[in-house]
């Protein structure tokens, strides 16, 4: 995806107004890396009667608000954060699941996708 007016690099453009991008990052243990927490959760689901659950992997979810002139540089920045800190590449894989302009509090709420009564 390309954004209009991005990546000029000729120094002639006026400073971009600061834009805020909200990135969702999912981190999971790499295939083959033991995940005793996921196994315990699997066991818990089985105890609840969910006999159809084949496997559970447990990980982390981050929502990061980053200032950047465009979505591409925001993504580059978030990927660098993942490589350096949010995930440990020795044991974890990550995916930037979603990235969109907005502010963190107003970003798609998790209650929009379930969890309500």
């Amino acid at each position, binding site marked *: 995806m390309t954004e209009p007016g991005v990546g000029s690099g000729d120094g002639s453009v006026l400073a971009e107004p600061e834009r805020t991008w909200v990135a969702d990052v999912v981190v999971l243990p790499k295939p083959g890396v033991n995940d005793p927490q996921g196994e315990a959760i699997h066991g818990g689901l089985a105890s609840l009667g969910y006999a159809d659950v084949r496997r559970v992997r447990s990980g982390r979810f981050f929502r990061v608000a980053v200032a950047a002139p465009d979505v591409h540089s925001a993504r580059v920045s978030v990927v660098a954060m993942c490589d350096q800190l949010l995930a*440990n590449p020795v*044991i974890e894989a990550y995916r930037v699941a979603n990235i969109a302009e907005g502010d963190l509090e107003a970003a798609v709420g998790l209650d929009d996708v379930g969890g309500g009564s």
Partner: protein
Amino acid sequence: MSGGVGVITFPGSNGDVDALHALRDDIGVPARLVDHRETDLAGFGALVLPGGFSYGDYLRSGAIARFAPVVEPLRAFAARGGPVLGICNGFQVLTEAHLLPGALLRNRTLRFHCHWTHVRVETAATPWTADLDEGDVLRLPVAHGDGAYYADDETVARLEAEGRVVARYCDAEGRVGGEANANGSVAAIAGVASPGGNVVGLMPHPERATDPLLGGDDGLRMLRAALTMVAAQV
């Protein structure tokens, strides 16, 4: 005069005073605590990263400590061949800082393990095991939630081939693995070394096994090596 051994204190370290006591009072080597904000490590003959829960184990054990100001000078110290021992959380910090390969995962039991264990010394070719022999069995305590050593197959094969597995969990007779590998470490690995051997990470706590009153003193057999390191320092 030599600066002796530096024991690096991070916010949340809890084995730092144990290590200091073991080195200074039990071994008799000059030692002092080093604040995580210090950046001059030039005077030390050896450095110890103690156990604990640096930065509350937030994100991953050891992940935040690696950004402390002391870590870049630590990296330089290690690159010059300076002896570094990371104990428990110190081991986790060294893996997160990529000074040692692999990572420490949650124990396979999902429980915090706080008990005595045995480890078999697998190499004497590190400054920290130089006073020991391969095959020696030490009885040391462990205290960890994230103690399961993990590295991919290729890395483990390289560690084995290069003699960089420092210690493995074993029973009192030195039989490696099985029930003795309580946390589920790959190849029952309890400690590994850097390519040069000078940086060692170990999950058990030698600094908490320095007196029969504590339940055992096998830790002295390892930590005494610090005397040589400090004496060798110019």
